């Protein structure tokens, strides 16, 4: 079943098209990677889907409903969560609180109950905490234990990326947008991340991945979409795309293609 579909999605910035007539489809349970040089519109595409930008034309359909014109928080509540290329964790809040913020829209307690800290709120908070810890333990012991109550800004670069993924998962999204999850990680961490992304998918999430590391792209994704100057230049299986002459010219270069 098609989960997310964009139709002729277009976004201009001061006369230059950042995304142009972009048609994209993802089925439930897939991992689709988007590759392309910097400035080719990948992150703009994410921002369009998550509602930070409004498209100039075209449509975004999520489970058959249009997302255009909704606020980012409404879109998030519909079940789309994301991470950022430039990390956006809440540095001064603890690791646990970061995940709990991600859970915010799912929690039911209303303002007056919270104000009075009723039994219901207490129970819900306790459950939320337990679940947050469960989510954090996806990444083995890295984010749990004493680190639960450490401020997020004290984490290493790689762990912050992991925390961001946990925060995104906290809302039980149907679709997960990962923007360069392996950036700044060393080769062994990158491979680990690739495996974990696959594990997350097996738990029933659908994932769109922006990544530069061709190893991750090759290893993790079911399908690859290549973008350049805001347009789709190739689509298909990972190897197929990597051998596409357009992609080689625009992005991989001859040597990159050989590696792939």
């Amino acid at each position: 079943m098609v989960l997310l579909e964009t139709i002729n999605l277009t976004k201009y910035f001061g006369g230059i098209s950042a995304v142009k007539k972009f048609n994209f489809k993802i089925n439930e349970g897939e991992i689709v990677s988007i590759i392309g040089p910097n400035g080719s519109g990948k992150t703009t595409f994410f921002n369009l889907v998550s509602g930070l930008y409004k498209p100039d034309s075209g449509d975004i359909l999520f489970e058959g409903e249009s997302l255009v014109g909704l606020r980012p928080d409404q879109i998030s509540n519909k079940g789309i969560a994301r991470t950022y290329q430039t990390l956006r964790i809440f540095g001064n809040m603890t690791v646990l609180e970061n995940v709990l913020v991600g859970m915010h829209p799912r929690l039911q307690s209303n303002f007056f109950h919270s104000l009075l800290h009723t039994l219901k709120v207490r129970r819900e908070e306790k459950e939320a905490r337990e679940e947050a810890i469960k989510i954090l333990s996806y990444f083995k012991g890295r984010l749990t234990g004493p680190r639960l109550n450490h401020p997020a800004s004290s984490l290493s670069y790689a762990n912050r990326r992991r925390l961001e993924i946990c925060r995104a998962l906290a809302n039980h999204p149907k679709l997960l947008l990962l923007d360069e999850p392996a950036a700044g990680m060393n080769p062994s961490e990158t491979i680990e991340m690739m495996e974990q992304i696959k594990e997350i998918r097996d738990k029933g999430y659908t994932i769109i991945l922006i990544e530069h590391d061709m190893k991750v792209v090759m290893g993790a994704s079911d399908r690859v979409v290549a973008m350049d100057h805001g347009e789709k230049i190739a689509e298909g299986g990972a190897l197929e795309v990597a051998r596409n002459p357009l992609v080689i010219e625009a992005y991989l270069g001859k040597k990159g293609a050989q590696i792939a």
Partner: protein
Amino acid sequence: MGFETFVGLTLSGLTVGMIYALVALGYTMVYGVLKLINFAHGEIFTVGGYLGATFLIWIGIEDGIPLPLKILYVILAFLFSMILTATLGWSVERFAYRPLRKMTRIAPLLSAIGVSIFLQNLILLVFGVDPIIMPVAAIPEGYIPVFGANFRYLAVIIIVFSLILMGGLTLFIKKTRLGKAMRATSQDREAAEMMGINTNMTISLTFIIGSALAAIAGILVAMYYGTLKFDTGFLYGIKAFTAAVLGGIGNIPGAVIGALVLGLAENYGVGLKLGILAYFFILGLIVGLAYQFYFLPREARKKALFNLADRFSYDEGSLSKVKILNYCYYGGWISGFYFLFKERRDSLVRIHARQAIRVGFANTFLFLVTLIFFLNSNYKISSEWQNGITFLVLMLVLIFKPAGILGEHIPEKV
């Protein structure tokens, strides 16, 4: 109300507006470079006025002194005050803002408020609660009759002098090496540093120029009204800031236009009946829109006027509906609602319909305000509300059009 009153109000509005502009330039320049609202600027203005007046009192300017000597004294007073005030502005930046430059935004803002309170109370302690009185001999007397209204020589001097200063400043920023360095610094400080521009010096220069202009404005106000109080600067500061925001902060011509609009609005507001104010309300709107339109890139101009849908190539289906929707912008918001409900599946139409409703709503609002003004056209606003008008303008501008009349000029990085 006679025509003379109107002319008189216009002239005093222009004069006060020019003074606001001089102060507003300081705000807008600092905001352009540091993204900081320099709260202390109003107090720097007061200090400038006090210093000028003190100098004139100290030097003993009297009626018996020959005119050339008087002029010399006044010029000396200006120089004296400008130099000291510029030093003050420089040191405020150096000691209260520079150490905070790398912190989050709330810290420098609070520091600026702290400096403002400190300076205001310092003036209070040094000069006392009583206002300082400008020696009468320093104020040029006489007036030119213009259409039956009296145009004071001082007002003429203020307007001409301010125009010269602003022209000079614009030239300085556009053409000279230092001016270009200032612009470069405001756009990308680190890159400017890499080009060998001493950015600290450039920022200091911004404060020095801004403070010197504020000092001039302070003395001019003291001359115009004859006195200056320790807290005058707070009000002038907020008014000038309002002017800067009204014109679009960071935008130098914007500051001048905003200041003139504000000066006129205040004077018309308290001097005229509401009905006449309504005309100017509409006039101002038209002037603002026309100016904004004029500064659009040439290709965009046509499209902005007539056909929003042509801006980009839309797919066929939505296109015709969007075209119809464009009439909503001019027609009203009922059709916007109609489309919103009827075509709610089409996201593109939805966006445009919402925008049409918003614009339609704003237009309705303006229409209602104007109507109320006309209906109450016998009602006169009391002069106590002059400050209230400024605050109201400030709130309305920030709420409805935070970018100001001419648009903000806060450069984003490439």
